Structures are given as C-alpha cells and as structure tokens.
C-alpha cells in the first residue's frame, strides 16, 4: 500500500516537475502586467470596432502614422515626418526598416491599403477617413488628398493603425470583420502589427496574451514583457481579483469600490476627469414606438416629452448615490476641455416632477406611456445601476419604463441597427474637439461619409446638417469654435439627447505599477512600468 502510494507520489512530483520546466525556462524577471476590464475587446481587427477597450488593446500590437506623447501632443510614430503640400494635400515620410511581426516590411502600399480598408462598409472608422485619397509616391512616401481642407486630419489618423497589405491579402482580410453580422474572420483572432507587443494567444471573453517583440524598432519607457488582458464581467469579482493580487491593473472600477480600494495599502488609485459623457437617446424617426405603448404614437418626437424627461431626472442624486461623486452633472453631450465646450450648458434644469407631468399632459400624455430602455451592463461604469435609477425616476413622472439591460456584445448590434426606442450612450470626442460628436451623433446618417454613424436616434434635420457642415469646413479656429458652441446650445435646448454626467475615470493598480492616465481612457502601454 505504502509502496503504491510512494510510487504514485514520485510520479506526481516528476510529472509536475516536467510540466513546470517550460515555465521555469522563461526569464525569471519577466514582468507580466495583468489587466482586468469589465469586457473583452470585441475583435483583433483594428478597424472593426470603435470601442476604447478594443482600441487600447490593439494599440499595443498595431501602430498608426502619428501618435500622442505623454503630454497628449501629436508625435511621429510610423511616419517620421509630415508636411502639408497644399491645403488639401499632405505628404508623410515613413520610418525606414520597420517590420511587421511576421517579418514583412512597412511600405507606403501598406498605408494606402489600410486607409482604403478603413473606408469599407464594414469599417467603424469611416468617419476618420471619409473621402481621403491616399497614394504611394515611393516605397516610403505617402500622399493623402483630402476632399476639403481638414485641420483635423492628423488627429484622425491617430485612430488608423497600419496593417500589412500582404498579410491581409494572404489571409483574406481585405475588409474589416463585420461585427453587425457576427462574421467570423481571420482578423477576429489574429493580428500582425508593427507595435512593441505581438499577439501570443487569444481566447475571446477569457484571456488575451501579448508578448514583447525583441526586435521592436522603437524605444519606449514602458518595461512590461507580457500583457495578460482578462475580462472579468462581475464588478465585485474584478475588484476582489485586484485586492488578492490576481490582477495588477483594473481600468474600469465600480464607483462604490473606489473608497475601499484607496484604503488598501497595496493599491494605488489614479483619477482624471474623463472626456466621456453619459446620456440617453431616443428613437426620433419612427412614427410609432417600436418598444412600448403610447397609443400608436412616438412621443419622443415631441420636444415637450424629451424636456419632461430632462425635468424628471435628478442628476445630482445619480452622481451622489450611484457614482459616489465620481462624475460631474451635465445637461449637454460634450465634456469640458473639448473645442466648442460651453460651461453654461452643463447646468441642467433642477428636478421638477410637477412641471414634467404638466409637459407630458400638454403633449397629450396625461397618463404617461410605457416603453423599453436599452442599456449595456458591461460598458460604462455602473451602467445598469444608472439605468435602474433612471427607470425609478421616470416612473415618478408617470412613465412606465421596462429596463432591457444586456452585455455590450448584444447591446451594440441592437443600436447599430437602430432597433431601439430609448438607449443609453457614453461618448467622447476622440480629438478633444466637439465636431466629431456633432458629425456622428446628430447629422443625418450617411455611412459612406462617416456622418451620423452613431446617430442611433435616426434623427434627421437638414437645416442642422448644413450648419454642422459649415462649422466643419470653417478654417478660422475662433469662428469655428463659436459655431460649434452654438450648435451644442441648439441641440441641448432641443433636448435631442438627455444628458446625465461626465465620468471621472479611475484606474486602480498594485503599488508597483505606474501608468499615466489619459482623459480619453486610452491606456498607452508605452508608458507603463512595473518595479
């Protein structure tokens, strides 16, 4: 008996030892950064999903022509330099001797291919590249012609990471993965960039591992050897994993746990006012409510109903209870420090249940009406709780709201299809400029031009379209800023969107991790260190 037991034990030790060998062979001092987030990057295709989590993760693998440095100033990346030849023509000189992870060289053809790929119907980055005509002048020179003078071209190209043409052709990845149709593509699970990390393994919704590329062309302050990106959907589990040392960095914290984490001796908290505004949109197109019952009408098309909802909200209460003060109330959809921001618009009306009920009665709904509110439950901080609070608040002005909360993988395809009556949305302008939100969430939908692509309300107002286009084409900065501010006043007064607050972004990390925190929530791995 004892012998059998000992033999078994010896065998067990031996096999454990054998299994452990490859692990021990890795350098003992390898620094692995384990990042936890509430949901996974939806794809490894750099042009298929315009969601910050995906952009952040892919920015470790892929690189754009231009990037932002630690102070958020524009800095060269794959383009060594660029010049504006004439108002519509830009010339980019590419960095020589840059290799993709599969060994292919970076050439002008790759840049041209990438921009054209980003213009495909399945791309979610059309707004950044609409109408651009890229041309390879020689192996390392690219010329881009814009349809109109565009002072934001450089800012936009930061969001276009360069792919390898040969690799894409070989793997049948000529167009971005179509997430709306739930397409499975090679690029959903594979990546080939020029960045400091290469994709080692990818298990969607479970774990993604990136490893440092030894032959990386650039220098960086960051000293991470391996990145483990792990989505943990449950808020308390994610926080517990950080506390227990299973994660090193959590990039989306539930507000209620921030105070608790700050007290922990092993944890460091970093905060910044994020450029993200949380607001609600309505179906402003259909004549009857798709999800709800309002006697055959669509009440949201009536400005009085939207204003009633505006009056029914208690922004301060949401910020105080659900967000624990980690947000600032606002009535507009643009955050501070963006071009066109006007602080006067932040002040929403104080909650007034009687006035809200009166507006509803005036609009013909003295008894209120019922509808469904669509919300993600793993996209924004405390998103489901905020929606629940909204349901309660609106019930007090007589609206019967059914909450339909779902994971982002279900939520986004639904709103992309404009298959909603009212929805939650969080939005930040990617280049610190108010124009992008106007272009994509207010203008009439035109996918090819990248206009109205996030206009899930299906709103269409030709007059407003013209005014937005005029502000977009204005080259006088001061005048343009004024025009944008005036447009925001218009849409705020018209309650096209009912806004709640601007988020405070909070990262929590173990004491040995240091990372800058950016107001656009772009975690740049190039500055992350561990000791």
């Amino acid at each position: 008996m004892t012998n059998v037991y000992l033999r078994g034990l010896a065998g067990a030790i031996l096999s454990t030892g054998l299994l452990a060998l490859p692990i021990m062979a890795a350098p003992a001092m390898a620094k692995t950064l384990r990042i936890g987030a509430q949901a996974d990057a939806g794809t490894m295709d750099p042009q298929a999903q315009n969601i910050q989590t995906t952009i952040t993760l892919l920015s470790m693998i892929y690189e754009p022509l231009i990037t932002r440095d630690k102070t958020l100033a524009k800095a060269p990346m794959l383009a060594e330099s660029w010049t504006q030849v004439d108002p519509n023509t830009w010339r980019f000189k590419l960095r020589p001797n840059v290799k993709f992870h599969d060994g292919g060289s970076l050439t002008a053809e790759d840049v041209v291919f990438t921009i054209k790929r980003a213009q495909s119907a399945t791309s979610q980055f059309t707004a950044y590249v609409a109408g651009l005509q890229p041309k390879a002048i020689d192996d390392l020179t690219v010329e881009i012609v814009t349809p109109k003078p565009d002072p934001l071209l450089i800012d936009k190209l930061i969001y276009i990471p360069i792919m390898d043409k040969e690799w894409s052709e070989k793997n049948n990845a000529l167009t971005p993965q179509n997430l709306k149709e739930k397409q499975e593509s090679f690029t959903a699970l594979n990546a080939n960039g020029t960045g400091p990390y290469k994709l080692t393994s990818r298990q969607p919704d479970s774990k993604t591992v990136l490893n440092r590329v030894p032959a990386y062309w650039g220098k960086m302050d960051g000293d991470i050897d391996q990145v483990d990106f792990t989505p943990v959907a449950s808020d308390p589990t994610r926080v517990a994993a950080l506390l227990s040392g299973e994660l090193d960095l959590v990039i989306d914290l539930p507000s209620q746990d921030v105070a608790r984490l700050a007290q922990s001796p092993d944890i460091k908290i970093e905060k910044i006012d994020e450029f993200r505004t949380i607001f609600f949109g309505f179906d402003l197109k259909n004549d009857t409510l798709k999800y709800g019952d309002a006697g055959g009408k669509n009440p949201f098309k009536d400005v009085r109903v939207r204003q009633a909802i505006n009056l029914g909200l208690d922004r301060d209460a949401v910020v105080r209870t659900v967000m624990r003060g980690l947000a600032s109330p606002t009535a507009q959809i643009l955050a501070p420090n963006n071009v066109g921001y006007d602080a006067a618009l932040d002040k929403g009306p104080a909650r007034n249940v009687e006035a809200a009920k009166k507006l509803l009665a005036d609009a013909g709904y003295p008894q209120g009406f019922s509808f469904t509110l669509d919300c993600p439950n793993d996209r924004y901080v405390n998103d489901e709780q905020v929606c629940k609070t909204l349901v309660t608040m609106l019930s007090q002005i007589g609206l019967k709201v059914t909450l339909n909360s779902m994971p982002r993988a279900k939520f986004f395809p639904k709103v992309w299809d404009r298959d909603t009556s009212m929805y939650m949305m969080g939005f930040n302008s990617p280049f610190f400029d108010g124009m992008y939100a106007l272009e994509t969430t207010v203008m009439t939908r035109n996918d090819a031009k990248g206009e109205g692509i996030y206009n899930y309300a299906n709103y269409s107002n030709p007059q407003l379209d013209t005014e937005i286009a005029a502000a977009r084409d204005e080259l006088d900065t001061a005048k343009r800023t004024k025009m944008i501010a005036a447009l925001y006043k218009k849409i705020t007064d018209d309650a096209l969107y009912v806004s709640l607050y601007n988020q405070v972004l909070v990262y929590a990390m173990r004491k040995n991790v240091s990372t800058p925190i950016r107001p656009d929530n772009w975690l740049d791995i190039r500055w992350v260190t561990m000791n």
Partner: protein
Amino acid sequence: MNGSSVATLGHQIARTSARVWRSDLVSDFLHAPVAVLSFAIVLLYVLAAAFPSVFAPHSVTDLASLDFSDAFRPPAWIAGGDIRFVFGADDQGRDILSAIIYGLRISLFVSFAAVAISLLIGVVFGLLAGFFGGWIDALIMRAADVQLTFPAMLVAVLIDGVVRAAFGERVHDQFAVWILIMAIALSGWVQYARTVRGLTLVESGRDYVQAARLSGRPTSFVLFRHILPNVATPVFVVATIQLAVAIILEATLSFVGLGIPPTQPSLGTLIRVGNGYLLSGEWWLAIFPGLALVILVLAVNLLGDWLRDALNPRLK
C-alpha cells in the same frame, strides 16, 4: 396525460393525505421540536409570500413611491439607520425587508410550480417504466441516466439558452418566470422517476396488482388507482427535498442573470444586486436576502429529513 387521470391523481393524493392525517405521523410531528420549528418557519415564509401587502412595511412594486434620499440607508440599529427601514434600504431607496418579502413571492412560486411539474413528469415516467418494463423502461431510464450525468444547474442553463436562441430575447423576458419554472422542473424529474420506477417494479409483482390485471381492469386504472397510492409516500419525501433544491436553483439562476429579469425582485436577483456592494461596505443589500434564503432552505431540508425518517417504517 388526460384530464381524468389528473383528477385521479388528485383524488389519490387527497386520500393519501387523509390517511397520513389519521396515522401517528401527526403525534410524531408534535414530538419533534425541530420539525415543528421548521414547519413554522416555512409556513411563515409561505404566508408572507402569499400576502406581501400584509407583511411588508412598504410596497416595492410602486417605483414612484421610492425616494433617492433613502438610498443605501443602513439597518435601523446602525447610525444613520431609520426604523422605517429595519434591514436598511437598497441602491434605489427600497426597503430591504419589503423587497425580500416580495422577492419570496417569485422565488416560492417558481420553486413550488417547478416541483409540481417535475413531480408530475417524474411520477408518470417512473410508473410507465416500472410497469411496462422492456424498451419503454430502457428508453426512459437511459434518458434519466444521461440527464443525471449533467448537474441540474447545467440542464437549467441549457434550457434557458435554447429558449433564448429559439424565440429571442423579447419572448424570453415576457415568459421569464415560466421558462425558469420549466428549466428547473425539467432538471429535476429524474429523482422522482427513479424512485417511482423502483417501487413500481416491486408493486407490479404483487398479488393485488396481478388480480386487478386479470380481472380486466384497464392499464391506466391499475397504474393510477392501485400502484400509485402505494408508491406515493416516498415521492412526498423526494418532493420536499427537491423543493429546497429548486429554491437554491432559482436563486442561483437569477443570481447569474439567467432567471428573473433584474427589475423584478426574487431572492436571487436581490443577492445579485447586493453582491455589487459587498466590498464597498453596504453589506445589508446582500446579507439579508442571503440569510432569508439560507433559513428557508434549511427549514425545508430539516422538514424533509424529518419526513423521510418518520415515513420510514424501518427506523421505528
């Protein structure tokens, strides 16, 4: 199963209950303090769930009555507490005690309905398998064996998933309670079927059954009037134990977000919501619904244990 056989079954259950009442079960019961206490607790829960407006201090169905200044109010005995909210208030300013009572309503309804359905399915299959034997027996019992290899939780998740995929999210949410009932019921029928089959095998060989068959009684009559009453007692014991399992299963499914939609309170959804505030110090959101669940399940289990012992002649 047709209407008349359901009626027959009901009739049998009534007759069996009457016999139970006349037996010495009642006096046994009165001499077992644990059983009396468990029974009192279960009765209290059932009454509270049946008449929530009598037991709950607040109505939680009327969202308009909530006040956000009450959100996260601690239990009454802690500083900042308010006697109106004995066990504190949740993130919406809803009274926890009232939410538990209204939540019990769904939890108990789902569990009782699920147990009733799985009992019905299990007993019928068990009778058929035990009585007819042969390929019918083989078919039913192999199906049962296969299902037994999957945990009940997995079967319930599978059923929930299939309904979602087949009918879509909207239909699912509309019938969420019934889907949950079916998911739990279909994951539990095997226990009854196995118990009943074994007993039926024994009973079918007995002389009274042979006599009934030889005298030309229809098979259904023999099954439901002669065999069923003699296999019913252990079924009650299984049903009591299964009730506790169903309550836990409902809470688990709702906790992971597969059962009742988050806006309707059931014990599972209450614990799920509270779970988000465990680390931040608002422990009462999860602890009290959790306690309510533990006490209920414990009481049902103790009652089931006692019933099993009391009905087992070999232990006397």
